[in-house]
């Protein structure tokens, strides 16, 4: 889990319901809880390593959290969470898990970007929003389990992406052409129809334009134009 250091750890987040912790502090709590799950004892060193932060900064943060009564910590000793601290850490972690699930399973993002987005969002969701979202994730899972067809439609819609995101050598099927005007007209008359297969042959040395083949002929298309072609990777 990659956590980012915020610029100012004392800048409390106003939109958060348990707003007495800054995103930065929440990251500390969450990671201490995670480390405690994996190890018997947690030292400043471990936290510093996990968050990629210098030890004195960690010590300072722990001091802050101790003042709030969330951690037990003596100099050079082990770090423990108080029961209040444990409760908060769990809530944060829970948010993190279902957000990751939302991005990964429902929005079809890959594991890494899903976690990344979850890490960013978890500190900013209000309690109400997070409860509703959690409910949605549960509902989705239930529907999926029941084999509802809309799930498939949603999944396939989520797989769609602009042509510009297809990698060299990949093939994709046209779903639709966005926009209007000369570009769309030109694409239509060149045979960019729904269901047609596009083969991304190569990117120019400067990454723009792209060489593609469709219907047995080769075309050069700019990245900004490829954004208007929505495809499904094959």
């Amino acid at each position, binding site marked *: 889990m990659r956590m980012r250091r915020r610029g100012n750890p004392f800048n409390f987040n106003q939109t958060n319901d348990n707003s007495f912790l800054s995103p930065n502090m929440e990251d500390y709590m969450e990671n201490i809880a995670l480390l405690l799950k994996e190890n018997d004892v947690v030292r400043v060193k471990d936290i510093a390593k996990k968050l990629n932060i210098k030890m004195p900064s960690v010590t300072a943060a722990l001091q802050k959290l101790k003042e709030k009564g969330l951690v037990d910590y003596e100099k050079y000793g082990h770090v423990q969470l108080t029961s209040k601290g444990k409760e908060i850490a769990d809530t944060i972690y829970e948010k993190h898990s279902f957000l990751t699930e939302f991005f990964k399973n429902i929005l079809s993002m890959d594991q890494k970007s899903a976690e990344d987005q979850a890490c960013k969002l978890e500190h900013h969701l209000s309690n109400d929003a997070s409860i509703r979202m959690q409910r949605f994730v549960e509902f989705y899972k239930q529907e999926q389990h029941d084999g509802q067809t809309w799930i498939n439609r949603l999944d396939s819609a989520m797989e769609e992406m602009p042509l510009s995101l297809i990698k060299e050598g990949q093939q994709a099927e046209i779903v639709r052409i966005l926009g209007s005007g000369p570009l769309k007209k030109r694409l239509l008359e060149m045979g960019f129809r729904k269901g047609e297969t596009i083969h991304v042959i190569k990117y120019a*040395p400067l990454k723009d334009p792209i*060489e593609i083949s469709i219907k047995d002929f080769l075309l*050069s298309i700019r990245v900004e134009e490829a954004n208007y072609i929505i495809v499904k990777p094959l």
Partner: protein
Amino acid sequence: MTKKSITVGLIGNPNCGKTTLFNALTGARQKVANWAGVTVERREGFSHHKGYTIKVVDLPGAYSLTSFSMEELITRQFILNDKPDFIINVVDAGNLERNLYLTTQLIEIEAPVIIALNMIDEAYDKGLTINTEKLSELFSMPVVPTVGTKNIGIQQLKDSIVDSYEKHPLQRKIVIPYGNDIEQAIQTLQNLIENHKPEYPSRWLAINLIEGDSDAEKKIQSLPNADAIVKTSYSIRNKLSQTFNDDIETVLSDMRYGFISGALKEAVRKKPVKRHDITQKIDSIVLNRYIGFPLLFIMLFILFHLTFILGQYPQQLIESGVQWISNLFANIIPGGQLQNLIVQGIIGGVGSVIVFLPNILILFLGISFMEDTGYMARSAFLMDKIMHGLGLHGKSFIPLVMGFGCNVPAIMATRSLENKRDRILTVLINPFMSCSARLPVYILFAGTFFPNHAGLIILFIYALGIFLAFISAKLFNNTILKGESMPFVMELPPYRMPTVKTILIHMWDRASSYLRKMGGIILAFSIVIWVLSEYPKPQHIEQKYDALIEQTRLEFNRAIVTVQKENPEKAKILHDKYNLALDDLEIQKRQEMIKYTFIGKIGTFIYPVLQPLGFNWQMGVSLTTGFVAKEVVVSTMGVLYHASDDESNQNLSKKLINPRYGITPASALAFMIFVMIYIPCLATVTAIAREIGTRWALFSIVYQIFVAWIVSFGFYHVARLIL
């Protein structure tokens, strides 16, 4: 016997081999003009067959008949208004599906079409077997297989034209079916339109109205119920998009493609062949991440070298030929004004026209080779990212590079840009690419005033030119050429070996169009400028100074003779003094003589404007005469300073730096910059006028002078503080 004539229009997608087929049909009997009112080329050729004269009009390459681009509109107008007897639809047999899309539109516009199924050999290599009879039946039009490059099927195509002409009007009408909902809509509109005898096919109008085509809307304005029709078409459009849950253009084009694939299923068999795709193999080298660019630069280097370095030899040959003829005439015609006019004015003028010919021939040999092989599109593919950042097109790159050699062929080379806006922009910034004719000026001034940093200064001038080109491109893009840019979607045609015939015809085409369209203007202007620089004849000034010179000579002679014996040293000093005085008188004489002519008067008149740039009067006059060509700047300086003609300009250089003439390093720098930026030359201005219109040429003149003044002024004053 009166020959009957048949007019046919040749139409097809880009890269379908249309030009080759056109050449095969007509041979060298072609004439090139522009379409009325636009600078898009109109090419016509003739062919005689079975007692008929077939006039073939080559239409611009197009993917469809919409009204988005000038080219498509021209084609559409030609079909509707000129009503040719037939449209030859050139179709790439290896790419039938896409090529036939245009055919569906030709069916809709109710043009009498004959299909030339071109490059049938390539299709066969791809494993395609095309049943031409079936195709002909399904599309209800004659289909003739051809191979333009090998002259195959050309006779049959001509036969088919004559046959169809004689059977006329036997062509059956077919329609592209659009299904109930749309057919009903079409019928509704058609009924409204047909109430009033429209000039154009009513089904075509109806379909185009449903598609929201602005040109079709314009075309029905003459009908009394135009408003009602347009209103109905809007509501139909909305209703249909709701029915299909998609916009109507997509639906219609989908149905046309449906019609085509249905036909192809019946008429085409494809057997899998083991394909060793040469095109993709070449592309993997030519577009390679690491060697793509080096390869492009090598290609350009070769092209540049051939055009401008190798081109020098025939150029020198032409120059000495012109010289020889001049001498010949000088001997035949007795001396005097007539001899002057013929030898210097006319022969000199002709010389200044044909001197560009070698460059143009070689450059277009190269460009035509690059275009026909398919490499041109690849070069655009490689460069597009950079060029697009400047608001240009990938294809602008080559003409810009060629500008460093000579702007005239470079501006002509912008024809490979299909889009008008891109072309205007590329033409307008081309003069900032400092051409080789400007180099002598830089060498003279940089060598004289910055002897230790001459190379650096010259490099700086070139860089400044490129910088100004980019700035101007940005500026034009955001002001006068603002507007929706056309899509870049560009076909990368398969690599093909071009035929010698096509390349030669293309090359000859450019050269002859240069001679016919620009030659006359350049010649006329050269003579005008020659007259301006020769007249009125300052004979009295000449006589006055000749007398003065004679008098000085006598005086010094006497003085030298008297002191010669007693004091040879003093005599020598006197002799030197005499030479100086003589030189002074000569310079004065020439200056006054030139001042007396029209061009001298113009130079004197504009001089106050140039004074703030630190230029002296001589510089002002040189710039005026430099309008003809940049080489003239140096030769005018030579005349004005009475410099002896030596190859290295050493004599002139010595005089320029003489403080009495008031040229400082700062003003020399400003002068070089001014020469780089202001009007390139008469021939370039003519080329601009011919390629994109006289108004743009005038704009270019004003813009260049304006920028030249501003930039030189800035550099002069900054340099004065530093140097």
